């Protein structure tokens, strides 16, 4: 137990030190799907453990910030100590929280890849598909991102395990 504490102390030091050098940089911190009304439709946080209240506050804040922006404005919003890269598809907003040194344009591309993957699976994906098949949306995301890092970018590779399972059942 004591060992554990020591390690956690050590780790904290490393993390704090690392913040400057970017050791602690996670890449993607969270992926959030929100509809036009600001209701959360999917939320996945990486390495960031928020309590329910913190989560609600955070989601409220960023949704208010992003939804108020017009089409012409750029897709990046700085919030607290990180950035939000967002993209709108019809009534759905895809919001991805990333570290400041992350490539924003690549994240835009990643959002598009996620949407295309869901499109291929559901066929013209809409908000209801994601609501009623929340677990599948999560499975796809899980195949694409692990611990905030992108792990797979080929749509067929992402969908293979999901399709395999559907066939089996």
């Amino acid at each position, binding site marked *: 137990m004591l060992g*554990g504490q020591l*390690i*956690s102390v050590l*780790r904290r030091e*490393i993390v704090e030190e*690392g913040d400057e050098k*970017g*050791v*602690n940089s996670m890449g993607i911190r969270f992926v959030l799907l929100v509809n036009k009304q600001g209701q*959360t*439709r*999917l939320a*996945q946080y990486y*390495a960031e*453990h928020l309590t*329910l209240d913190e*989560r*609600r506050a955070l989601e409220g804040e960023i949704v208010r910030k992003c939804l108020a*922006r017009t089409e*012409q*404005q*750029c*897709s*990046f*919003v*700085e919030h607290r100590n990180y950035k939000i890269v967002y993209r709108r598809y019809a009534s759905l907003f895809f919001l991805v929280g990333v570290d400041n040194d992350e*490539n*924003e*344009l*690549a994240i*835009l*591309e*990643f959002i598009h*890849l996620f949407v295309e993957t869901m499109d291929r699976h559901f066929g013209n994906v809409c908000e209801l598909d994601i*609501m*009623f*098949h*929340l*677990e*599948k949306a*999560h*499975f796809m995301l*899980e195949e694409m991102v*692990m*611990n905030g*890092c*992108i*792990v*797979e*970018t*080929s*749509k*067929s*590779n992402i969908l293979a*395990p999901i399709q*395999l*399972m*559907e066939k*089996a*059942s």
Partner: protein
Amino acid sequence: MNPFSSGTRLRDMIKAIRACKTAAEERAVVRKECAAIRSSISENDQDYSHRNIAKLMFIHMLGYPTHFGQMECLKLIASAGFPEKRIGYLGLMLLLDERQEVLMLVTNSLKQDLGHTNQYIVGLALCALGNICSAEMARDLAPEVERLLLTRDPNIKKKAALCSIRIIRKVPDLAENFLSPATSLLKEKHHGVLIAGVQLCTDLCKVSEDASNHLRKNCTEGLVRILKDICNSPYAPEYDIAGITDPFLHIRVLRLLRMLGHGDADTSEYINDILAQVASKTESNKNAGNAILYECVETIMGIEATSGLRVLAINILGRFLSNRDNNIRYVALNMLMKAISVDSQAVQRHRTTILECVKDSDASIRKRALELVFLLVNDTNAKPLTKELVDYLEVSDQDFKGDLTSKICSIIEKFSQEKKWYIDQMVKVLSLAGNYVKDNVWHALIVAISNAPDLQGYSVRSLYKAFQLSSEQVSLVQVTIWCIGEYGEMLVNNVGVLQVEEPMTVTESDAVDVLESCLTHHSTDITTQSMCLIALLKLSSRFPPSSGRVKEIITTHIGSVVLELQQRAIEFNSIIQRHQNIKSSLVERMPVLDESTFISKRAGSSQANISTEKSNQQLPSGASLKLSNGVAKPAASPLVDLLDLSLDDTPVPTSTSNDFLHDLLDVGLTNSSSSASGTDILMDLLSIGTPVQSNTTPENGSSIKGFNDILPIAKPNTATVQVVDLLDGLASNGSHPGAQSPVHPSIIAYQSSTLKITFSFTKQPDKPQVTQIHATFMNLSSEAYTDFIFQAAVPKFIQLHLDPANSNHLPASGNGRITQTFTITNTQHGQKPLAMRIRIAYKVSNQERLEQGQINNFPPGL
């Protein structure tokens, strides 16, 4: 039964939740559902457990507590079937986090699944481990993950690689175990494995210097080959995005190359060619291509690139900057911030474009551009840039004005070479956005005007003109009022007219009009109104013909409901009525405000507390009224911030200094015979400040109690005598509350087993803020001290001036003394008690010793 299509009840629940019209209805539905799930769990209903978890995931997403489902997830994970495991792991990742003990229970299941024969089950376990593992789990399961890195299946390999990232972040010592498997991942063909491997290498570089040296030596070539292959590869439908093969892999490789090339000339040279190829060949008409170019530019900026390559990079940024897509312009601005440290000349070339971006309609772009402009300002371009920004201030959004104003003000302050320019620009900013100007900024302006005798007339005239046009900007109004009060006659008599000025005639009554209109305007705040009253009083002496009118105006405020204004009005009224003979000397012009004091004060309190700034500003003006010609302020002596103690806001030590207090207690406890517990003493110590402060009222009982509380710290035998002294002093103090110059008793400021310091105090009756302290040092040990140095630190509201000590040699056993005198100025005299931290360094038979202490027992009234 299929868990993913049998969700009829899940569907029903979602429908029910969607049908809710109010938040209260939704809560009711969720509560009902949760109750049903709980009872289903307690009945151990296996058939429904996966569906329950799916529901809980939805409920969790809506932001309701779902902790009761955690054990159910563990059960599902432990079951044999893939679908159950799958939903179980997903639930685990969403509903749990590493702080929960439940996680300990899952380690065993994870270990079993990592060794499973089915690759999909192994993949699930890796994914879960990669997302949620704690440091303990990382240590337990690292060998399994290492083993999986070497399997043949690419799907397992890529997940194992990302899982390793989590492990080495949690336990950096394990990094070396992963070094050689990570290196071999870079030789793979599968893009998923490559991207995961590259990211693992990047993280290895971050945690260990050895790893980055190893990778630099062994992997640079491989990475360059990967980049070459994907650059030149023919159409690959699987990974193609807008005609570019796998931009994500491109970006990750470029990022790793940046880490390897950073600060290493050989590696940088080696990758120069490929970077040039990527930078020149990548298509820039699609977002994916721009993402690669953006990353490539960052890498070029981050390594020891050749100048040709850097020019290429800056040109790409120039192209980005003129792009119509706001996203591209945003990243260009972002990147130029980093480029400025590499090649500021090249960035300067884009200044006009960047300046245009400050005026963009998009807040994100404006913010970036403004920060960049701020970095671009130098002595040569400060004037035109300031002009542009000030011009824009007029039309900018309300939300943006705050940021813009503070940046403009700091540019003006930082780069003003001539005072006239500074005053001109400040007046402009004040009249355009005076409501956004921070208090310390306009205070600085007043200080500057007071220090420029030849520009005072000009300043007050331009302020008067500006005021006529924009009287709703609070800080402009305040500066104008102050200047009219001080330099009113220069306004009316046109003193010191500069050649560039347009002649203007202002009568005495015009000047009084300004003050009267401010005083009576409905939106004026109390501070401004008080300033108006002072200015009016000053004008009544400068403009004798108008004094009748001034008196009338002041009289109307005698009945003001605001205490501050009422008091001022009554005081000023009696000055006008009864003290005509001394009035002119009372309201003389303020002595020149000391610029260096102000600047050091401002720098010292970076979180510029408005209230203290205000009192700083008003204290001298108040003093000038009462003490005829103000108090000459000694220049601030550089504070030796020994222990970084800030007593600014609280007279008692704050919680941050608790550790230090414990140290102090240790010293005290070894000497004291009392068996009081540590916390009691701490409480006593903390309460010292309070009784000392309230000492002016003759409540001897409480004061004595306060001083008795100090007793445990001091050595009993000497302290008793000392306390009697103290009380004597207090008693005399208490019985003569009206005494002219109180005699302050001397104190034992510090005592340890080796050293005793006594302070005695003298004060000049006309300067209550200034105290002279004579410190006497006595050696209580049996060995002589050499190289004796005494240092002291005081809170920011106190100024300290140390005179040299009479000796640095202190003979043993109290056979000799060192004395040292120092002067203390308490700028918050009467509000805050003195406090001091001390450090004494000396050598005993050539060995260095250090003692530290805190003095809180200063007699009251210093």
